[in-house]
């Protein structure tokens, strides 16, 4: 390390109280920002979980649908029309709805029921126990073993339960890639059983799932579906629609944005302020260094080094604190919806860089203003 950076580092670190205040400010801001964004990201990813779990390339739905749960049933002709569109390899119906399971203790537990196309079982989950053919047996249901599983009193193969006044039988324990947002267990059954067991409107198809023959067929399929007054979205489009809904239509996105901004401002003001006092305290000495023969750019690089060094350490501490916190939280609450993504890390890094940049800018301006002549005059 070049000597002037070593000097810069010593000036900074030897001033223990200010260095600590700087680190605490930045660490705290990073911690809060990462927590906020990770929470939001976790919620978004959970809200989109069914889209990934089912795995269809194209989802046909009522244009008013903005998340998987609030599906709006469509008439049967949507499915038959979809099957007739040129470029559709196959199209299947999906039932997606809620039901009540009566527990042995007499309480009710809400569940999500997914009804898979009887002919293909398209979108079926991976089974941990049981055989998939058994889904066609009388009253058969698969139960997803996720964080919500024990809300159904830890059912086993062969367990019986009551669902909306019908009998249900557990024939399989399934596993899905990610569990949903709403904290209710998920059951799979066939489409036909779902619509007979669960009271429904005249229309019964929640979604039509389409597999296109090729990527290039997708725009045509979307156009044809649009002619019916419905919407065909690719998986990615659907995920984006759901995310947009939570981000922009629920107040949640705004809240997270506000909290993140506040954390940023708090961090910026604490560390900006502290760094400024630090510079002020050493200002005359920097002026003396100028008189001795330090060049402006050497002083600038010293100050930037100090600001960025502190910020990067604060960043590391903040990210570390946030991820430990999340790990601990997940140990206690398997459902805890928070995930640190690469984007979040990058975003927090950008914010920290801004904090460092602003702080050093203030310092650099001060130090460039100071004239060695003023030092001389005392």
């Amino acid at each position, binding site marked *: 390390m*070049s*000597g*002037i950076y*070593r*000097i810069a580092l*010593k*000036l900074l670190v*030897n*001033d223990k109280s200010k260095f600590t205040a700087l680190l605490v400010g930045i660490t705290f801001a990073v911690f809060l920002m990462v927590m906020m964004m990770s929470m939001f990201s976790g919620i978004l990813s959970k809200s989109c979980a069914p889209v990934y779990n089912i795995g269809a390339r194209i989802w046909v739905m009522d244009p008013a649908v903005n998340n998987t749960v609030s599906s709006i049933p469509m008439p049967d002709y949507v499915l038959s029309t979809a099957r007739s569109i040129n470029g559709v390899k196959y199209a299947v119906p999906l039932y997606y709805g809620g039901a009540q399971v009566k527990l042995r203790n007499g309480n009710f537990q809400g569940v999500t029921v997914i009804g898979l196309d009887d002919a293909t079982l398209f979108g079926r989950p991976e089974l941990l126990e049981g055989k998939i053919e058994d889904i066609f047996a009388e009253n058969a249901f698969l139960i997803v073993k996720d964080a919500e599983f024990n809300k159904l009193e830890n059912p086993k193969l062969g367990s019986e339960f009551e669902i909306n006044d019908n009998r249900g039988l557990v024939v399989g324990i399934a596993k899905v890639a990610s569990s949903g947002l709403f904290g209710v267990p998920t059951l799979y059954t066939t489409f036909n059983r779902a619509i007979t067991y669960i009271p429904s409107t005249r229309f019964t198809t929640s979604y039509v799932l389409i597999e296109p023959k090729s990527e290039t067929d997708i725009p045509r399929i979307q156009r044809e579906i649009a002619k019916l007054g419905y919407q065909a979205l690719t998986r990615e489009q659907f995920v984006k629609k759901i995310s947009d809904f939570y981000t922009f239509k629920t107040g949640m996105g705004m809240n997270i944005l506000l909290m993140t901004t506040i954390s940023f401002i708090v961090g910026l003001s604490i560390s900006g302020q502290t760094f400024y006092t630090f510079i002020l305290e*050493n200002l*005359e*000495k920097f*002026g*003396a*260094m*100028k*008189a*001795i*023969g*330090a*060049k*402006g750019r*050497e002083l600038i690089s010293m100050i930037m080094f100090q600001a960025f060094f502190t910020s990067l350490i604060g960043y590391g501490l903040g990210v570390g604190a946030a991820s430990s916190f999340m790990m601990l939280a997940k140990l206690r609450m398997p459902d805890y919806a928070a995930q640190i993504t690469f984007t979040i890390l990058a975003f927090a890094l950008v914010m920290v860089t801004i904090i460092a940049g602003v702080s050093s800018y203030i310092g650099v301006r001060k130090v460039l203003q100071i*004239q*060695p*002549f003023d*030092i*001389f*005059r*005392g």
Partner: protein
Amino acid sequence: MDDCVIRASNLEKWFGEGEARTQAVKDANFEAHYGEMLYIVGPSGSGKTTLLSMISGILKPNGGQVTIEGRDLWAMTDDELADLRLNKLGFVFQDYHLFPRLSTVENVAIPLILKKMEWNQALRLALEYLQIVGLKDRAELQPVNLSGGEQQRVAIARAIVGQPDILIFDEPTASLDGDTGRKIVEFVKTNILNEKRCIIIVTHDSRIYEYADRIMKMEDGKITGLENNHLNEK
């Protein structure tokens, strides 16, 4: 032999414009030589610091010329000036201006580090200079733990560690008691001054006049006299 190191000709400096304009230095002409200790004395506000700053590349004059070893000082770029100050000049400020969070030896090493000397080597050399000013045992202390006189000696060590030809002291004894001030200047005269060095000291402390080789008097921005020091029987 030309032993003239600094030559100032017709130096002018004023601050402000119009009504508010104050002439800090008027038509200053003088030379400083190797091997001498030149004092600039005069009442407060007479322009001593201003003159000192103009001949050391810190304050640009409004008129006139400064040459250092024949080179026109104020024709240089900012970087050239900084390099000149770093390599040819050493400064001792009235208020020492040591970094409070650095150890004594690190403070002394700063000019060497600015010259890109390797860290350990710079510290080793700085320690030698601390020994010269008699403060080797204070090397690891922070300046706050030193007395005023000791801090001034650290500042002197910092000024001479880069082996500059010209040493500039502005009121070096102003913050010291009389005895300490005298001792320091005596030390500088006997240990730091040599025939390849020129030391310029601004002061209005008559207790240290006896160490001057020549004394230049200033009054109201004008040089009113420059003569050999009769107190100094050299």
